[in-house]
Structure formats: C-alpha cells, structure tokens
C-alpha cells in the first residue's frame, strides 16, 4: 500500500520523543548519579548509597530538610484555611467589588517571584522584623493563598447556593451549613490544593532566599550555599530526595480524593474539569 507522508508522521513521533528526552534526561542523570559509587559528576562507576549516607550523616543538611518540611506543612495548613475561606467569600459575594477581587487573585501568580521576594524582604526590614523561620512561612503563605483560592473557587462555583439554603432550611445554622454541607463538598479541591501548595513551598528557592535568616536555611537555600564551594554528588542525592517528596505530594493530591470514593480524581479537580 502506498503511504502518504502524513499517514504515519514518523517525524512527529521522533519529535515527541526528543521533547520528552529533553524534559527528562537531566532528571534521569541526577537520579542516576545520586547512586554513583565514585565522586564524579560525569562518569558512572557503580551503584552505592554513600551520598545518601553522607546526606543523612550531615546534621546541618538534615536540619535543613526538616525545616523545609515544617515550612511546607505550616504553609499548607494556613494557606488552605485562608484560601478556602476566601474562595467561598469571593464566589458567594454579591458585592460590587467581588469581580475585581476575583481578578486580583491572579496577580500573585504572575508577579515575578524575585519581585515578590524583594518586596517581602523590604517589608520585613521596614517593619523591623528579624528574618527567621517564621518570615519564610509568612512569605510562603502569601503566594500559596492564591493557588488554593483558584483551585477551590472553581469547585465552589459548581455548588449551587441552594445547597446551603437547603441545609439552613433543614435546621442548620449558617456555620453548620458551611461545616456539614459546604466543606464536605469542597473537600477534594481543598485537599488537592493543599498538597499542591505543600509541593510548591517545599522546593521554593527564590522567596526563601530573600526571607531566610542567618541561623538556619531551608533545603533549597542550603543547597545553593553548598554549591558555591564546589559540587558534590551529595547534591544529586538531595535533589532526588526532594523530587520524591514533591512527587509524593502531587500523587496524593491526585489519588486521595479517589480513595474517598468520590469517583473523581484530584487531577480533574486541579485542572478544573467538570464531571
């Protein structure tokens, strides 16, 4: 059979493979070399766990990892509570300023992170707050609120006002209506948004860099300081570990809503698909 050049676009398939290689080859190299048995960043000699051992035996690095996890956890808690409340308010508000406030939510997402970092630094120093663990948390919460609000807002918009009215009609106070009806309906979106924000906070460098005090550094900042004095294969081990943490958070965001038997994946919630 004669084949038309566009019947089986082989070049497109090659192109797709090339794109994927381009995307994943660096990550693959990092993972591979994290298991290297020699201290080389260009020859792979054999399998070993020595760089992981080195990482866990370095108390400073270990503390940085714990610090990053704590920051991400606190950010997740605070941002989901504030962001969800904001999403409920923005969708239900009949006020004239509500549409404007809705658009304003997008601003933190498009402001260059370096600008956000510098402004956070300026505000903290002007008000006279010493940079510490807590300044990082506050900075992370501010940008995370937008993500949560946007994800939860999409879900909220699909819930009829009548559902809350029905709860109140059946004897629930306004607060009970939110707790017993609205929150369970929003829960998959809140969970997905929270885990997403956890992943973002955990590997954030720019904001953390500007708001980190002198006493201790979160992991990404710590890595940055370390490589100024030369690259060590430990970096690969740290990179791999960070990737595992982030991917776990994202995977939970996708899978957990399913486990609750809602028959909808977190993927759909995150990408705001209906159904």
């Amino acid at each position: 059979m004669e084949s038309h050049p566009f019947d089986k676009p082989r070049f497109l398939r090659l192109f797709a493979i090339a794109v994927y290689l381009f995307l994943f080859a660096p990550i693959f190299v990092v993972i591979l070399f994290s298991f290297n048995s020699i201290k080389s960043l260009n020859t792979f000699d054999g399998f070993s766990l020595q760089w992981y051992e080195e990482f866990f035996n370095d108390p400073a690095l270990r503390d940085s990892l714990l610090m990053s996890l704590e920051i991400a956890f606190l950010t997740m808690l605070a941002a989901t509570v504030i962001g969800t409340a904001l999403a409920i308010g923005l969708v239900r508000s009949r006020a004239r300023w509500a549409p404007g406030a809705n658009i304003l939510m997008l601003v933190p997402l498009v402001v260059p992170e370096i600008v956000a970092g510098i402004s956070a630094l300026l505000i903290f120093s002007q008000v006279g707050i010493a940079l510490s663990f807590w300044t990082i948390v506050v900075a992370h919460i501010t940008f995370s609120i937008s993500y949560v609000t946007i994800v939860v807002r999409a879900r909220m918009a699909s819930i009829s006002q009548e559902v809350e009215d029905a709860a109140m009609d059946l004897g629930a106070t306004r607060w009970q209506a939110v707790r017993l009806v609205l929150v369970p309906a929003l829960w998959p979106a809140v969970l997905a948004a929270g885990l997403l924000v956890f992943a973002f906070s955990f590997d954030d460098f720019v904001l953390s860099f500007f708001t980190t005090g002198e006493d201790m550094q979160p992991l990404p900042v710590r890595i940055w300081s370390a490589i100024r004095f030369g690259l060590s294969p430990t970096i690969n081990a740290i990179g791999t570990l960070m990737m595992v943490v982030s991917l776990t958070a994202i995977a939970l965001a996708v899978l957990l809503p399913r486990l609750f038997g809602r028959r909808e994946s977190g993927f759909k919630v995150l990408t705001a698909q209906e159904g």
Partner: protein
Amino acid sequence: MAEAIGIQNVTKRFGEHVAVNDVSLEIAEGEFFSLLGPSGCGKTTTLRMLAGFEVPTEGHILLEGQPVENVPPYKRDVNMVFQSYALFDHLDVSENVAFGLKRRKVDKAEVGRRVAEALELVNLSERAGARTNELSGGQRQRVALARALVNRPKVLLLDEPLGALDLKLRRQMQVELKQIQREVGITFVYVTHDQEEALSMSDRIAVMHEGRVMQCGAPEDVYERPSEEFVAGFIGISNLITGTVEDGGKVRIANGLRIDAPLPDGVTRGDTVNLSVRPEKIAVDDDVEAGMVSLDGTVEARVYLGVSTQITVSLGNGDRVVALEQATYRSSADDRWEPGSSVKLGWHPEHCLVLR
C-alpha cells in the same frame, strides 16, 4: 379552616428593583396553594420570604398567626423543595433524608423509623443506600420531597419542583404530589410558571405579574372569570377583542358589529373595553345555537391537534379570534374549514367577559 400563612402588605426591594409589591394573601391550613406567573413576577421571592431566606422590606409574614419575618430559616417550621433539588451529594439517600431530624436532635431509632416512612411515602425505599449521583432526575426529586416531608413541617414550600423533569414524568409526579399532599395533610405552597400544572393541582391559585397578585381564586375562577387582561392572557389561550361600550349593554367592535356582553359595574357608555372569550367556548357553523352572539368571519389558518382542531378566524378590521373545535363522534374528517372559506361563529353571552 385555620390560617396557616398570612402575608400582609409585603414588599421586597433589591436596591431599586421592586421584586414583590404590596402582596397580601391568606393561605388556609391543608390547602394546596399555587403562586403562578411568568419568570420575574416575584413568585420565587415570595416563597423565599416564607422560608426565611429573604426578609421583607415592608409588611409582615405570619405562620399560624405568629409574625416570623425576622426568624431565620433554621428556626421556622417550614421546609422547602428546591428547583435544583439541592441534594447533599456527599451523603447517601437516607442520610439526606435524615439531615433535618438529626439537626433537631431526634433520637436515633426515631430517625431511622421516620426516614424509612418518608422514603416509602415517595416510593423510594429500595434506593435508601444509594448515592445521590446514581439517581435519575425523578428519583432525585423524590429524595428532595422526602427530605422536606420527613420533618413534618407546618408548611411545605415547593419551588418549581417538576421543572427539570420531562413531560411524561411531570404529569405522573403531578398526580403523585397531589396524592401525597392529601395523605399528609400539610399545607403546600407551590411556585410554578406552568398554568396547566397550577390548574390541575391547586385548591387556589394566585396569579402574579410584576410583583403584584393580579387575581387569587380557585382554578375555575381564575380560568373562567379572569379579572384582568393579564390573567386572561396568561392562563390558557384567550381571545381579546377591543370594543367601545354603547347603550343597552352592547359593545361595538372594530367591524361595526354590536355584541351583547355582561358589562361589569362602573363601565359606562363610551369606555373602551376588551372582550375575552375562551377558544373552546366558541361554536362554529352548525354548532351555533339560538341565543348566541353570532358573527361572520374568514378562516385564516387551521391547525390539526388530534383531539381538537384550532382555527384562526379573521373578523375583518384586524380582529382575530381563535376557536378550538373538539373532535367528536359527530364530526367526520376535520377538514371542513379551509383557509379562505367563510365561517359563522357564535358564543353564549355569559361566556364573554368584559375586561377593562
């Protein structure tokens, strides 16, 4: 019968917009009462004020004689069936129905018993454990009904509850709703824009238009004796012929004919009025009897409707009349009225209403 609901001079404004304008109604205990009107007439706002979701700008709302306009919805002894059903999708069918009883701290055994009872009432016992998103539209509607009725409210409010169902299911649910209402004996306040629905189910109907009640009465009253042009036009098809009042109880219409009509009080010579005759009250050709008002016209269009045939007759000078001729054992093929042919029309004077 005792009064279940009193609406006293209630006005509701949203900013500049007047949604409900000085409405007063009394609804008796056990009555099936409908608020009928086109969208935007204020019927849903009125219902939401009864439920407590909106507070009247002016006036009072009484439940069993007690003013409740400032009582929040969760403290009112009324329940509502919502247009969208508003089911709680994270709960199963029986949990949905139990929601209200649990809020009121009814004890567990009693909750179980009453939920089962309510589901049986709406014929849904076998779906008690189903998730709400596994149900069909009609079943969701029944859950919403059971969820409201299980609380044994003084009044059940229904906001176009059958609007989302297809025609066949809607007819079936109309019959069932009426049956359920008789069985439980609760006062129903039913909002609809479907005149047929209102006519077939209600004890009384209030026809609303632009925030006002235009007429309130039994279905027969509202249909047979509409007091306003709007009511005549909104409920069923109505023929409106403009004319001028002359001496001797006659009305002169555009083609010069003088028609006998029962003039209401206060109408005097020279007034412009509208004559309203229902299409099914108009006799055609051989059916015209002695004692009828009779006029001649030309057939403009004929629509075959199965059990009846609808013909549009021009009276000349721009007036048109629609007549509905029932197919009976006497009529042969209903192709008697070809467009363009002359036809004789007639009606009994008492079937003609004079509207100002």
